[in-house]
């Protein structure tokens, strides 16, 4: 349950498989407890089963709920699509259909293979079940994470590509293509683009995670469809969804098929400046051939900037475009060189630029927000729109080298480029030249690449900064870097040569410089801890689910609703079982004849106010009769605790000021729960339940209740200590202060503590045996020496004094190896205990 509590904070990314696994583990453990209760007292607590089923049912319902989409068609022609059908066609194609059908914008003919089609594909032959299994089983330990991410991605994609398309889907796709052929001509080539649900919705950028294929022939239509569908599981898409808390099952991959436009020129335009919200001019990036090279940033592009008022070209930058992408006649696209003076010519005329700007304004006006639009000019000289989506505008003012920080020039390893994501990051350089390098990318390293390719986004979740030789702030990778809060410099020439693998550097994106080593004056790595899970569907589900697991309503065992029907969460059930198990076991001797199973009074020389119940192998040998001698205790955690309990004799309560004493009197006379004469089976008794590696201690001293549970053995990863300290007799403020007081001391010894009202709970886990014993000693000591502190709790000076005394004791007695219990005789029998300890 503590994993779920930790995850609730949303600080580290997790997916649905994490939630499912944890819910399953929690319910198995709770169920096992209930079964144990059945063994202990057959039939007595059978109501727990009903409660369990009902809580589990609620959790299941939350886990399995998904947006139900009706049984729409498998394919939809573009002429029937608008933004109202985004659940069937995906946002990308819904946006295109909208401007085509409601705005009369020129968009190529085509159709969409719908979300229902995707689900049919993925549910065919239980593919989804298999995918869930692969996701669940993928190793999560740090060193294997990347490797497993890439192999997981490959496995899932292969599964999808290998799967046979269901017959009805296959014929639907071929029929839709046949119809397109009738309009566009026999054997028309198509572009096939992902149009995932949620993609381009404006909330999340999904930038470049999925595949598109250009100029696909009829022969390969079905294969290409599966490949695009499979790209739902590209490494960068898996990482992105995980980091943004998006459920896999909410992302159906719709696929758009449109007649291929063999563009003479093309590009991307923004209806406003993407990096300056105050700049309303239209920005048009343009190249020869297909717009592809603008999208992936591989070729320098012309830039036209058009002002709105007056509506005219404000700026024009013509780049040297040495290459272009064109369609092969048969299938696919190829890159060709542009020779001589042609390369420096403008890719479009000014008239086209103005016409494009006009379209951009119409689309912006229609949607009512800034737009990011992919366009092309076809061989007939007509403008066609291939994609449009909301533009994420960010204020990213261009930086000048140097920036605001004073760093000696001698420390500069590289400088220049442009800031694609603000901030500074420190880490060792890791140059990724090929896919296989990516597998070894260490967490916290500075990612250095030649091209800013979308696929490197898979590494951004682990990178402290990004440096690329090419690319622009408009590219996909830059988008994701900003979303993930990873500082980035793009277009930094020769970065892959200037920066050496393993060399520690500080990347100052704001200053456009890379420095040797860590520059302390830079606020490096501060930007990172962006809580991406906030408000995400996955975090939301976790929160809903955990409402049925974590909260504790059954607090008071004496209360009337302390019964199975009062259990509203798994935590309640465990609390109930725990309490009742103790009761059943201590009653065992009375109700049953097996006296050896009854609790024994602890004897250290003389019988003491401590009782011990042996659960399993906690005694060295079988004990007849009512008493057990300390010599005979074989429980490692109990002995460690006991060592702390007897380490320093208790001096009695600290001197009280008269206000403190009054407070206790008043509280005791007004709070019935504190009345010591109330019948309670455990009043003023201290109970150990033990086995060799386990110990649970419930104790009540006067008005204080505390419980300690510990598992201590050779299996360090199973070791744990839990401690709860509650109550007190004074007024609420004093009790709260005491709880914080105890919490603060435990904090100093690596316990995770939580103070709430007048209670403090602490836990510690995973240390090895010797450390655990030491910590138990500290707890035992505190247990004895923080009794009846309520009276002095409003006096800061005495609090401080007491704290120093307690800490001094802990360091000098508990944590010092040479010392044993002091003042022999102060606890009868402590000597024999000590000898026993050494003999072990």
């Amino acid at each position, binding site marked *: 349950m503590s994993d779920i509590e930790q995850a609730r904070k949303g600080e580290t990314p997790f997916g649905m*498989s994490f939630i*499912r*696994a944890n*819910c*399953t*583990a929690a*319910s*198995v453990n709770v*169920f*096992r407890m209930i*079964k*144990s209760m059945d*063994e202990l007292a057959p039939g007595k607590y059978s109501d727990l089963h009903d409660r369990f089923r009902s809580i*589990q049912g609620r*959790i*299941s319902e939350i*886990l399995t709920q998904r947006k139900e989409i009706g049984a729409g068609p498998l394919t939809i022609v573009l002429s029937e699509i608008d933004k109202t059908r985004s659940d069937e066609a995906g946002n990308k194609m819904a946006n295109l259909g909208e401007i085509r059908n409601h705005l009369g914008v020129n968009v190529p003919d085509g159709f969409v293979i719908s979300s229902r089609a995707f689900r049919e594909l993925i549910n065919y032959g239980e593919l989804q*079940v298999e995918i*869930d*299994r*692969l996701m*669940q*089983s*993928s*190793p*999560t*330990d740090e060193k294997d994470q990347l490797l497993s991410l890439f192999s997981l991605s490959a496995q899932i994609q292969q599964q999808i590509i290998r799967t046979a398309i269901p017959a009805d889907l296959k014929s639907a796709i071929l029929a839709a293509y046949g119809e397109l052929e009738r309009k566009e001509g026999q054997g028309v080539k198509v572009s096939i683009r992902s149009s995932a649900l949620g993609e381009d919705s404006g909330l999340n950028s999904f930038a470049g995670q999925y595949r598109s294929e250009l100029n696909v022939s009829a022969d390969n239509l079905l294969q290409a469809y599966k490949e695009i569908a499979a790209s739902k599981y590209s490494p960068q898409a898996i990482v992105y969804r995980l980091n943004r808390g998006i459920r896999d099952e909410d992302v159906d991959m719709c696929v758009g098929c449109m007649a291929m436009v063999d563009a003479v020129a093309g590009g991307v335009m923004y209806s406003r400046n993407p990096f300056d919200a105050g700049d309303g001019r239209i920005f048009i990036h343009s190249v020869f051939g297909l717009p592809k090279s603008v999208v992936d940033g591989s070729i320098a592009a012309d830039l036209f900037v058009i002002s709105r008022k007056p509506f005219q070209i404000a700026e024009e930058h013509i780049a040297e475009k040495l290459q272009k992408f064109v369609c092969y006649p048969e299938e696919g696209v190829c890159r060709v060189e542009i020779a001589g003076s042609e390369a420096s010519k403008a890719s479009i005329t000014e008239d086209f630029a103005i016409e494009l700007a006009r379209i951009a304004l119409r689309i912006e006006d229609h949607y009512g927000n800034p737009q990011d639009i992919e366009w092309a000019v076809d061989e007939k000289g007509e403008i066609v729109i291939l994609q449009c989506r909301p533009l994420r505008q960010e204020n990213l003012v261009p930086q000048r080298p140097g920036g605001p920080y004073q760093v000696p020039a001698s420390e500069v390893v590289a400088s220049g480029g442009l800031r694609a994501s603000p901030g500074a990051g420190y880490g060792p350089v890791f140059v990724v030249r090929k896919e296989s390098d990516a597998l070894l990318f260490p967490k916290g390293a500075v990612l250095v690449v030649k091209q800013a390719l979308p696929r490197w986004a898979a590494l951004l979740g682990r990178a402290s900064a990004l440096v690329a030789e090419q690319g622009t702030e408009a590219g996909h990778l830059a988008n994701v870097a900003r979303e993930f809060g990873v500082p980035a410099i793009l277009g930094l020439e020769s970065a892959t040569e200037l920066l050496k693998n393993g060399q520690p550097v500080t990347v100052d994106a704001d200053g456009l410089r890379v420095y040797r080593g860590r520059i302390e004056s830079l606020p490096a790595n501060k930007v990172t801890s962006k809580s991406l899970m906030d408000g995400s569907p996955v975090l939301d589900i976790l929160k809903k689910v955990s409402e049925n697991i974590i909260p504790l309503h059954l607090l008071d065992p004496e209360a009337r609703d302390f019964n199975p029907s009062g259990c509203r969460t798994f935590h309640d059930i465990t609390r109930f079982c725990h309490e009742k198990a103790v009761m059943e076991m201590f009653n065992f001797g009375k109700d049953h004849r097996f006296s050896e199973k009854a609790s024994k009074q602890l004897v250290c020389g003389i019988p003491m106010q401590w009782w011990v119940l042996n659960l399993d192998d906690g005694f060295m040998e079988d004990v007849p009769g009512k008493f057990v001698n300390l010599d005979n205790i074989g429980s490692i955690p109990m002995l460690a605790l006991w060592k702390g309990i007897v380490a320093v004799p208790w001096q009695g309560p600290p001197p009280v000021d008269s206000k403190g004493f009054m407070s206790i009197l008043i509280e005791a006379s007004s709070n019935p729960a504190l009345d010591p004469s109330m019948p309670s089976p455990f009043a003023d008794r201290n109970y150990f339940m033990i086995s060799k590696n386990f110990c649970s201690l419930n104790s009540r001293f006067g008005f204080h209740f505390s419980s300690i549970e510990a598992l201590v053995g050779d*299996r360090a*990863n*199973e070791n744990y200590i839990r401690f709860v300290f509650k109550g007190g007799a004074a007024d609420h403020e004093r009790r709260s202060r005491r709880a914080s007081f105890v919490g603060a001391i435990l904090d100093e010894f690596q316990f995770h503590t939580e103070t709430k009202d007048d209670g403090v709970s602490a836990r510690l886990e995973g240390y090895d045996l010797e450390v655990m014993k030491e910590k138990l000693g500290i707890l035992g000591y505190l247990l004895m020496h923080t009794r009846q502190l309520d009276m002095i709790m409003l006096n800061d000076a005495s609090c401080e004094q007491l704290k120093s005394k307690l800490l001094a004791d802990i360091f000098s007695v508990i944590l010092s190896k040479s010392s044993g219990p002091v003042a022999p005789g102060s606890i009868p029998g402590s000597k024999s205990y000590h000898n026993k300890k050494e003999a072990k």
Partner: protein
Amino acid sequence: MEPISVLIVDDEVEFLETLAKRLRKRKLVVNVVTSGEAALEKLLAAPVDVVVLDVKMPGMSGLDTLREIKKRHALMEVIMLTGHANMEVAIEGMDIGAFDYLMKPVEIDQLLYKIQDARKKKALNEKSDLLGTPGRSS
């Protein structure tokens, strides 16, 4: 003490072999089969201390296999180990009498501890069975 003998049942051959190798390194006697049917056959011929059983397999399902094992060998302990995190299946398995329900990926030591604990429980149950006293089977 005798080395613990386990039978691992999983249709994923690669996983099966890796796990077997790692458990053998930890001094366990390991047998492997790839289906529920084969597991039942194997257990008839040579009983083991603990069975590690996958939930989702072609042919006889994990739960059916578990049911059959418990019917034929009441004292044998079975640990479910699966890539499917499914609460309903998990609880059904526990109800039938599985010792625990673990999810892949599992740390090898954690699995080893579970196997040790399961064997310990089996030994206890066998003892109380022998003495005719009501056993602790939790």
